[in-house]
């Protein structure tokens, strides 16, 4: 008895069986509050008033129409890309290559923007750019999917490495064949006909991603293909037993995922940046993993989460301007918030059991 007790670790983890929805949300809200409190520490260390700083973040992201537009513009690719990776993650296929898929979509869209903008009418050009972006992103994603399906390669590493190839291709285009003024490392700005029109002051990419939200919800929850994805995610063997062609489903799902990322790439170059450079994806492919995860792969929840992250990003920019805090402080605060929000999911799924508590249970 005594030895058994000694062997019990101080803290043990146990999977929670059930938890009320109310408590789940209490933990989530609590984690945000804890994050906000922890976020005060770096601000106090740099000698700023944290309340003022949080105020500036809110003001700098939503208080003026211009800022709100910029915030929404930041949220669009996050939302779109989170939608893109959701089916992969549902399938437990860890696609962390969205960055590269966005980039390849952007490259192909840029090709038409640079060389066909004076030959094709505006609307048609945009459709061609979007389609070519989708196909390029999709094909880029199919490469690791094919290897996974055929030889069961590690998709996490494969998709990750594909990112750097895509980024390298853009860096080459930037300094080589597509460069504007020699030595400038800049690809010329798109002409007006290759730019997305704005609706309510923000590029109409927001309409595209909102439509995608609905489509993705229907696809994941109401279609046979969505069901197949869910089954594979739960158990590959069950899927095989049910007669599903797992390899084909992996390739198909990755193509859809990559295609949506490619469209996001098109929206970024045609709606926001108006040119192409190697940092075109700007970490969206990674941040959107957080968005997808925090939203529990629910497409509607992604709208809110991507807005929260966009508010933080835009707001911390203003924080830098007004309070002259270094950019890294703003990054630290964002990091703390994400860390707390993600780790709270851990406490929702597991509970901690302390040793003395168990002792009580034994004696009782």
């Amino acid at each position, binding site marked *: 008895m005594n030895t058994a007790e000694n062997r019990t670790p101080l803290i043990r983890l146990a999977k929670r069986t059930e938890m009320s929805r109310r408590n789940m949300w*209490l933990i989530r809200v609590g984690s945000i509050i804890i994050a906000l409190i922890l976020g005060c520490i770096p601000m106090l260390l740099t000698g700023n008033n944290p309340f003022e700083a949080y105020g500036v973040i*809110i*003001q700098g992201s939503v208080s003026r129409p211009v800022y709100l537009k910029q915030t929404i513009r930041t949220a669009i690719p996050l939302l779109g890309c989170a939608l893109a990776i959701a089916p992969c993650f549902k399938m437990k296929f860890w696609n962390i290559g969205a960055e590269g898929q966005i980039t390849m979509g952007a490259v192909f869209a840029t090709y038409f923007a640079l060389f066909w903008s004076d030959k094709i009418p505006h609307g048609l050009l945009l459709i061609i750019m979007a389609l070519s972006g989708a196909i390029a992103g999709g094909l880029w994603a199919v490469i690791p999917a094919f290897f996974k399906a055929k030889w069961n390669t590690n998709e996490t590493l494969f998709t990750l490495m594909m990112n750097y190839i895509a980024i390298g291709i853009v860096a080459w285009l930037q300094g080589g064949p597509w460069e*504007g003024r*020699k030595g400038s490392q800049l690809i010329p700005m798109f002409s007006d006909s290759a730019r997305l029109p704005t609706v309510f002051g923000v590029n109409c990419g927001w309409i595209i991603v909102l439509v995608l939200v609905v489509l993705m919800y229907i696809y994941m929850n109401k279609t046979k293909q969505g069901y197949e994805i869910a089954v594979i995610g739960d158990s590959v063997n069950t899927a095989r037993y049910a007669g599903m062609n797992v390899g084909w489903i992996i390739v198909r799902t990755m193509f859809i995922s990559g295609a949506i990322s490619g469209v996001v790439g098109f929206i970024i170059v045609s709606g926001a*940046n108006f040119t192409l450079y190697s940092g075109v994806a700007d970490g969206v492919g990674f941040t959107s993993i957080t968005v997808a995860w925090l939203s529990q792969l629910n497409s509607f929840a992604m709208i809110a989460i991507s807005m929260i992250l966009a508010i933080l990003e835009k707001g911390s*920019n203003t924080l830098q301007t007004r309070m002259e805090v270094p950019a890294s402080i703003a990054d630290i605060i964002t990091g703390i918030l994400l860390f707390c929000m993600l780790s709270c999911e851990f406490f929702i799924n597991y509970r901690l059991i302390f040793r003395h508590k168990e002792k009580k249970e034994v004696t009782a």
Partner: protein
Amino acid sequence: MKKLSFILIVLMLLSGFAFASGSGETAAATDPNTVKVGLLCIGDENDQGYTYNFIRGRDEATEMLKADGINVEWVTKFNIGEDATCTDANIEAAEEGCQIIINNSYGFEPFMLEVVDEYPEIEFISCTNCASAFDGRDNTHNAFANIYEGRYIAGVVAGMKLQQMIDEGQIAPEEAIIGYVGAYSFAEVISGFTSYFLGARSVCPSVTMKVSFVGSWSDATAESDAALALVDQGCVMISQHSDNTTPATAAQSRGVFHTGYNNDMTGIAPNASLISTRIDWGIYFYEAIKAYVNGEKIPQDWCKGMADGAVVMTQLNEAIAAPGTAEKVAEVEAAIADGSLQVFDTSTFTVGGETLTHAFALDTDGDFTADSEEAVYDGAFHESVFQSAPYFTVQIDGIEWLNAAY
């Protein structure tokens, strides 16, 4: 659990109040003698080079303007990329009430120009680029300085040192080789190392030069590697057109000499670095801001040189410089200032064995190749006359390009 949820709700309400009571929006300056100026920088002061030089200019201009009764409130943003973050930074500075917004890097300009039409009452300045001056807008401006003049003088200092080494028998005349670390094979860089080379050859006739491009404006490791590789290829003098101080330390570690750019580098490489040249941005900032406050127009394209103090030399490292260098520098400075010395005098260099008789300065049709305004006249190539940004792209004899990086 109830207790916990109560605490959470209270905390949430508290933090909500805290947000609401956060800082009020800052109003734009209303005092006519106070002007709010945005300065958007590609790096930060820690580079001890390019951005640091702008910060020095900012502080200097602030002092000069204060003496004139003008207060400048600066909004300085650091580490901005040459990408859409620059567009956002310009919007941000405009929304925060800046009346003048200065973009410090070449690659900022296209992104800056995306914003300027939204804010016609705000003056936008793109340093070192060339599209703003000719875009037909009143509120966009370019600025640069005749840095090739300073580089010519740095070249004179280097050439005198090399000649001294030849005279003392330390190296043979044909061993007087300069190694130049350049960022990109770009007009600004080509113009810079050509003027430097001509300066060196004016006092050391046997000098030759090798140029290595690192393909980045700021990559400390690559710059150091390039400098070391040049030393390995026999270069005994290193100079640079890149943002870091690592070429200076690399030169010192191999016991060769160095001349710098943007900042005095004798502090970190006292046994190697002879002198540096830099643009004094304070002169321009002072003129532009003063013009704005007085209700005058900021020049569309501003370019001044040594005569006006816009290009300056840092302190000469007398301990290692050749004797008589200070006097020679003063003499050349005076000659450049009064116009009696042309840096790109066509009688001092050849291109493919021939004298240069023709080169265009400006690109007017947008294909990024110069097509108008003859720059060669009166026996010299006239740099930075038709626009502030350099346009000398000729490859002259005596300079060997080890690679190219576009």
